[in-house]
């Protein structure tokens, strides 16, 4: 096991109370495994990614633990986490393209980053990796503003994997890219794994069709909790959680036109994460809800490697 996350709870402190954005999530990642993480906007995907590397000031580690390569990560302690960042865990943040310092040339940025980690720059290795993602060497002499979204994204991928971290978390890194660049990025990520630049990976995305091209396993979250986790093909072809089923059936195939057929999303909204009422968080929108759903459905392994948190599925 590269990674073991056990009953992790991370809340945001606000004036109105705690936003329970990650509320008891458990899962593991094997060596070499790529996990696709999906779920409705606001369900806690970015929060989970950040929790594994850096809690921002308002985030509070309320409970649970994270173990990476046999070591318990001190996720609640910003300073103690420092030696792990980039070397053991690396994150490519959502909108990382705007996170690049606009006043620094890219080459200088890379050098400064490595210095801060007390590592030497291996220029040949850097060039080889740029080559792999099809960026010309001269990007190192450019400012971030001179690159298009897709080029920046690939640059960030190279930077965040330069020190061969054990776990890479990629948060929506393909969302702003055109389909052929998406394909290239996904293929590159697989290559990073196959070459051992990273051991395992969490790939956060809204694009289930794309995740299915890359991930071994897909985990679907709903309102701060795990809804379903299974091998990718099972999630796509035989999902058991009602939310996953509705999500998969919302995906349009190429060829549907608004004029001919109006697609529909899942009616209703997710519950507020400030003081959510107990019970299944999907119940207001669930077509199968019954009395029992007023109690929290625990995640249950319904068949090998297939975990579902739903009273109807167990």
């Amino acid at each position, binding site marked *: 096991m590269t990674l073991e996350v056990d009953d992790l709870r991370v809340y945001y402190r606000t004036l109105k109370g705690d936003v329970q954005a990650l509320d008891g999530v458990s899962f593991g990642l094997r060596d070499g495994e790529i996990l696709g993480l999906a779920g409705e906007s606001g369900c806690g995907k*970015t929060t989970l990614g950040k929790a594994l590397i850096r809690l921002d000031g308002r985030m509070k580690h309320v409970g649970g633990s994270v173990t990476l390569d046999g070591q318990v990560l001190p996720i609640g302690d910003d300073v103690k986490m420092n030696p792990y960042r980039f070397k053991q865990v690396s994150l490519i943040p959502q909108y990382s393209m705007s996170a690049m310092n606009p006043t620094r040339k890219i080459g200088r940025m890379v050098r400064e980053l490595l210095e801060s980690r007390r590592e030497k720059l291996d220029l040949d290795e850097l060039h080889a990796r740029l080559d792999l993602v099809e960026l010309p060497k001269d990007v190192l002499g450019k400012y971030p503003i001179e690159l298009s979204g897709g080029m920046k994204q690939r640059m960030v991928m190279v930077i965040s994997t330069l020190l061969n971290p054990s776990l890479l978390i990629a948060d929506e890194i393909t969302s702003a890219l055109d389909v052929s660049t998406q394909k290239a990025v996904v293929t590159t990520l697989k290559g990073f794994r196959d070459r051992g630049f990273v051991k395992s990976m969490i790939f956060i995305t809204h694009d289930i069709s794309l995740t299915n091209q890359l991930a071994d396993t897909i985990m679907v979250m709903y309102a701060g909790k795990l809804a379903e986790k299974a091998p990718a093909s099972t999630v796509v072809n035989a999902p058991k959680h009602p939310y996953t089923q509705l999500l998969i059936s919302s995906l349009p195939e190429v060829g549907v036109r608004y004029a001919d057929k109006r*697609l529909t999303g899942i009616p209703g909204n997710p519950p507020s994460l400030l003081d959510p009422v107990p019970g299944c968080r999907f119940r207001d929108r669930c077509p199968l809800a019954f009395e029992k759903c007023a109690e929290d459905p625990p995640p249950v392994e319904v068949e090998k490697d297939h975990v579902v948190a739903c009273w109807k599925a167990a």
Partner: protein
Amino acid sequence: MLKLDGVTKVYRIGAFGGQTMTAVDEAGFEIKPGEVVSLIGESGSGKSTIGKMVLRLLPPTSGTISIDGRDVRQMGKRDYYRKVQGVFQDPFSSYNPVFKADRVFAMIREVYFKGVPDKEWTAKIEAALDAVRLSPGAVLNKFPHQLSGGQLQRLLIARALLLDIEYLVADEIISMLDASTRIDVLNLLADLKQRGLGVLFITHDLALGNYISERTVVLHKGRIVEYGPTDAVFEQPEHAYTRKLLASVPQLHTKWEDAS
């Protein structure tokens, strides 16, 4: 009608602006009221640059952009933004981080809706938020970093909608949303289009571009390589590049390895 005519953008790059890069090369197309035009093309092909020029955030190097025959440069910015608004690819960079959501709306009110009474204004905001499926409680009174990517993106769409605009530049606005919310936002655009809104829909999601748009423009290295009714572009793409794009679309039940 919003019209681009021979629009070109040359960026100066390098330390002293010594080199140049033609990001958009003689682009010409039009958007009629009540019509969605998809703009697709690979990363770096110049899509956002076109969007920014339409929004007058960047001046074209040559060529003209006009609305109903009038060069947009002759219109005052305040009047122009009453007609044309944009929502950008990267919401965190287009949204001033020190303003709470309420303040963002209040600024629009100060500029455009001074006389509107409080009650009416609140109702207007609630309707706009509802249209993008956000509950006011989840977003108002929050700073941008306190929202998830998709929540912020939708907040910005709601802001653009407050103005009863005529044209919307939507640069990858649905890419950060899950499949179900995407459809809601698209259906919202479809409703607005029926009420006369013209939309420049920059997207890489070809399935959804096809779903919503009347016409499609394919951009390749700054040049328009294909332009026509969406069904024609999708069914009989003429340009090799368009065919390549269509072939890269991930299909849920087919793996790339099996397809090739």
